[in-house]
């Protein structure tokens, strides 16, 4: 927090062209703390890994040089090599697409289903609200990992299946937030004004209530993104995700487990990447939430 004054002016100077025109709108987003900037950098680089893996590494993620098996991290192999001589860094880079797209699917599932549940129950009220909130209670009552496992046992193993399973586990959180936000915004003067000036239920909900609930939902979405990365790597580790030789982060750590006595890099380094991404997502979420309150 105490970093803001020192970072604010210097950051504003980097965008002099736009700053004088619309100061109130442009300056505020630039007042970021260093840790938030760092977090954005982490997320952006992992997104870049997922989009253009070939730009960051030329080594293949699935075939390796048998002669170079179990090499320690070096200038050539940043994260070392595994038992079949595959470049671990290349596998981490190529694996990012699985974790990121999985987390994106999970957050989308949670966001869409949860917001729908919460917004409808908050807007309609009465018996519908009671019934929908009991559904949410049931979802909350089951520990999230067990809920995901129940979905996995029904849908079967695979990347898409575990992404959906992780998403289902976050529906309740989104539903509760959306409901409380809708109830809050509904009570404001401008929504009443929109009704008074002839707005109908759906239009008011869509044009006024939902947009004004978005900051809190965005903060939760960022938080759930980190949680989803964690949960997906956990399910991958347990072996419910993509089969080998897919370079999924959790699966990589599971495979490296057999060499824990001799090759520390196989488990430690991919795990550190997961920690960095989750930390960054949580940090960004906290930053969005703080801006929402400001």
């Amino acid at each position, binding site marked *: 927090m105490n970093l803001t004054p020192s970072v604010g002016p210097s950051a504003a100077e980097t965008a002099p062209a736009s700053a004088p025109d619309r100061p109130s709108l442009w300056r505020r987003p630039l007042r970021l703390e260093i840790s938030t900037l760092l977090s954005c950098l982490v997320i952006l680089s992992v997104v870049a890994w997922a989009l253009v893996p070939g730009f960051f590494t030329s080594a293949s993620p699935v075939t390796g040089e048998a002669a170079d098996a179990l090499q320690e991290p070096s200038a050539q192999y940043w994260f070392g090599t595994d038992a079949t001589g595959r470049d671990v860094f290349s596998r981490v880079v190529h694996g990012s697409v699985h974790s990121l797209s999985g987390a994106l699917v999970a957050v989308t599932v949670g966001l869409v289903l949860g917001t729908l549940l919460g917004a409808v129950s908050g807007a309609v009220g009465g018996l519908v609200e009671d019934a929908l909130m*009991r*559904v949410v*209670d*049931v979802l*909350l*009552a*089951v*520990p*999230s*990992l*067990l*809920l995901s*496992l*129940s979905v*996995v*046992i*029904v849908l079967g193993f695979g990347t898409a299946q575990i992404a959906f399973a992780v998403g289902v586990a976050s529906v309740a959180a989104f539903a509760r937030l959306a409901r409380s936000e809708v109830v809050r915004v509904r009570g404001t003067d401008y929504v009443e004004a929109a009704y008074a000036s002839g707005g109908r239920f759906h239009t008011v909900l869509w044009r006024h209530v939902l947009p004004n609930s978005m900051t809190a939902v965005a903060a939760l979405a960022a938080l759930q993104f*980190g949680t989803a990365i*964690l949960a997906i*790597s*956990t399910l991958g*580790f*347990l*072996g*419910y995700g993509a089969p080998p030789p897919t370079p999924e982060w*959790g699966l990589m*750590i*599971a495979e*490296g*487990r057999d060499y*824990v*006595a001799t090759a*520390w890099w196989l*488990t*430690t380094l991919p*795990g550190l990447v*997961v*920690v960095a991404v*989750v*930390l960054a997502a*949580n*940090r960004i979420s906290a930053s969005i939430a703080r801006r929402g309150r400001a």
Partner: protein
Amino acid sequence: MSYVLRRVGQAVVVLLAAFTAAFVLLQAMPGDAVMIRFENPELGLSPEQIAALRATYGVDVPAHQQYAHTLLGFLSGDFGHSVQSGTAVRHLIAEALPGTLQLALLGFVTALVLATAVAFLSTYPRLAWIRGLLRSLPSLFVSVPVFWLGILLIQVFSFRLGLVPVINPGPVQGLVLPVLTLAVPISAPLAQILTRSIDEVYTQPFVTVVRAKGASRHWVLWRNVAKNALLPTLTMAGVLFGELIGGAVVTETVFGRAGIGRLTEQAVSNQDVAVLQAVVLLAATVFVLVNLVVDLLYPVLDPRLRNKSGASV
């Protein structure tokens, strides 16, 4: 009294809904677990044999009869039979429960100690220079994959330092690393609550008065922080229980310990629906009961809530 009744009724409704959802999702699906397992052509079973097997598992009757039968069974503690091994699920769970209880209990106590240490150090004036670091510890703890932490601990303590033997550790030695693994993620929310409570206590006017009368910093902390932190911690009790269960699944898998978590992991791997269903419903029951008790305890613990709770909710 009507509040208590309404709250109990709500808990029963949620449990019944959870049971119904689990039943619809896991048992009443078109291809039930028994079909999936025994219709495999490699087993070479005749249709009559499959029909007989379906009868023994009780899946050959219409869904509503199955529903009533299963519900009565669950109420009387009969969770059916494991599709994989044929053993009664009740026995499997009874066998696995002590190990997990021990792990979860020790993990929770360790988490409490860890959280207290982090919270106390991060509000200690002499450590102000590393306060930022200490305050970010909880957010680091929740960002660490539990399975990775377990492997990391094995790597450091068993292989690098040789402190905990990998093969045939003693009963106490074998518990140290799993308990620590489980405790770290649980300690994060606890540490956050405690830190906030300590900060809050210091902003309250009565503290200045008590300090001025000569009370030491520690005396104020121990007397007031615990009281302040109790309610928010209780609110989290259900969530913490869920975290313990999820953590146990991963921890027991990583350390190869027998327990409910391992049972769950194997049930999913073997598509053993009956076992998973029982574990999920038991966990939901405990969660609902914990929250029920907490809700009923609130007015007892905090006199300010006594009037409100009767009227609202």
